[in-house]
């Protein structure tokens, strides 16, 4: 029966090629937009690397410091900020600070390698879920003592030593020697908090100068094992900045937010102005817009489908006479419509692969590339199913309720 419907739909599509082309064009364009949006969201919100814990931490990476006479500076905080404000927050279970994105250049057999490295602390390894292939991370004790220990990614190991088992070997970072104690899996650049090549304790900084600066190049993570605590952490941070900020140096006040993963997505796509307090709402708006995007073509398809009723009314009358119930006809036409949308979906997927490729190429989304992955295929299917049902139910309902006698009077089947 199912096969019969699909076959008949296929014939129908071939019979009225203009209708088919218009419908498919609309469907695939709509689905393409939705799939692309989903891909962007997906790449930001779901990770399978170290940042898969991103439901449990907030990121502090930008603060606006204000000085008298309307001077202000917007940028990353420094060590003092971390020490005097973030470490004193009561809600987080763990806080971690890191300074990432520094470049380390090494020559191996006359070949030049550039690796990014990151100064961080022991909590960093507890908050993020790195996948260790060999060895381990540095401990709190080793961190406090300023031990010159390093964790490196597996491709860094291969670059520097042509092998992966490199525990105990010595590497050179910023003119200092570190002993490798851990090798982790490479981290994709979709996970900017964790995607570095080398990690060393920040207590091994060559100079202690960093301890005196209030602003700087640091980012911080605020962690709680219970993700329901994130809002409390977030508002504690905001209110501490607002109410308990002690003037330091030229700065008499500071403003900023601790970002959830949604904030990060929203701010990246939408605005870098941290005064836009709640970027999460952007994500909600986007979902709403996705719905709107879908609405127009849905209405369109509903219309096309309804006009198709007239063409097929005698088939409907016939099927009723032969014993099809309303529900069976309803089912038939919904199946037909889903079939149509799934075909549209295939085109939509192809189109969005091209578009996503292009967007990634021109760097449409700052600071993180987007890519098409298997989950996007799943989104595509979900969207097309939803779209198919939405645009099919109303026409199918109307078709199924046609009066058989009147429907049969139309000559053509």
């Amino acid at each position, binding site marked *: 029966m199912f096969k*019969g419907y699909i076959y008949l739909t296929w014939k129908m599509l071939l019979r009225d090629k203009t209708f088919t082309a218009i419908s498919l064009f609309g469907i695939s364009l709509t689905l393409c937009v939705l799939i692309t949006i989903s891909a962007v969201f997906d790449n930001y919100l779901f990770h399978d690397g170290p940042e898969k814990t991103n439901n449990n931490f907030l990121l502090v990476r930008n603060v606006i410091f204000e000085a008298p006479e309307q001077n202000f500076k917007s940028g990353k905080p420094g060590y003092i900020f971390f020490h005097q404000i973030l470490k004193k927050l009561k809600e987080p279970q763990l806080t971690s600070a890191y300074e990432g994105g520094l470049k380390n250049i090494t020559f191996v057999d006359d070949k030049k390698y550039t690796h990014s490295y990151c100064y961080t602390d022991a909590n960093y390894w507890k908050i993020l879920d790195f996948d260790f292939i060999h060895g381990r991370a540095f401990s709190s004790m080793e961190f406090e003592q300023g031990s010159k220990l390093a964790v490196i990614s597996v491709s860094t190991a291969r670059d520097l030593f042509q092998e992966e088992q490199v525990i105990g070997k010595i590497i050179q970072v910023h003119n200092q020697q570190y002993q490798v104690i851990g090798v982790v899996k490479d981290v994709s650049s979709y996970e900017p908090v964790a995607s570095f090549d080398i990690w060393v304790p920040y207590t091994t900084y060559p100079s202690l100068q960093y301890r005196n600066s209030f602003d700087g190049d640091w980012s911080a993570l605020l962690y709680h094992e219970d993700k329901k605590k994130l809002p409390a952490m977030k508002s504690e941070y905001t209110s501490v900045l607002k109410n308990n900020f002690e003037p330091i140096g030229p700065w008499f006040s500071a403003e900023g937010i601790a970002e959830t993963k949604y904030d990060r997505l929203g701010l990246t796509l939408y605005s870098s102005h941290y005064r836009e307090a709640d970027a999460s709402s952007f994500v909600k708006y986007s979902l709403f817009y996705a719905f709107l995007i879908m609405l127009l073509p849905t209405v369109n398809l509903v219309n096309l489908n309804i006009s198709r009723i007239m063409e097929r009314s005698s088939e409907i009358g016939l099927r009723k006479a*032969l*014993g*099809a*119930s309303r529900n*069976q006809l309803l089912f038939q036409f919904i199946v037909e419509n889903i079939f149509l949308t799934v075909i549209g979906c295939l085109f939509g997927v192809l189109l969005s692969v091209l578009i996503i490729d292009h967007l990634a190429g021109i760097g449409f989304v700052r600071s993180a590339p987007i890519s098409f992955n298997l989950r996007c295929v799943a989104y595509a299917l979900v969207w097309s199913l939803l779209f198919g049902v939405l645009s099919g139910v109303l026409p199918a309902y109307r078709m199924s309720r046609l009066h*058989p*006698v009147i429907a049969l009077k139309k000559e053509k*089947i």
Partner: protein
Amino acid sequence: MIKLDNICKYYQTDRMETQALRNIDMDIQQGEFVSIMGPSGCGKSSLLNIIGLLDEPSEGQILFDGEEIQFKRDKELAQVRNQKIGFIFQSFHLINDLKVVDNVELPLLYRKIKASERRRMALEILDKVGLSARSSHFPSQLSGGQQQRVAVARALVGKPALLLADEPTGNLDSQMGNEVMTILENLNSDDNTTIIMVTHDKSLAERTTRIERIFDGRLIH
């Protein structure tokens, strides 16, 4: 097997009300071959549609095997149509995108029958109407008479107890009409299928076991 009790049918159009059927009482026994005659517009199709449960009477009731039909219950109605009634229309109503055999299978789609069994039943009935060689043709490749025989096969494939035919030979020349009529006669005499046929053709009507005449929505005797 069918009892019509004081059936009336009104059609409400813009300004006026058409009385298509007035107080029709009729009793049809199992195995009868009834032909319904009357001038155009007298209400023959309206009556047949009501007997076929495609349309609801404005007044009166229908008993089918002694049970009153509830027109509000779509699912039950569909089931009765599917299992007990076969339809043949003046204009064949075959689905052009489906092969002959798939057209014949259509009523079986609404029963729980395996695909292979459906196919077997369809081929068997096509053989009976003399079209087994055409089973994988498309309707447009057949003559009018052959198309109507496909429609007859489709009406019969589910072995209905009642066959309704609204001018089945209306679109056919007399020779092809005769072929179709012969099939119906055999069906009536061999399988004891009850047949109600609307026709304008007096010679065909005379071959049936009972003739009912309608004039202006009333049965005349």
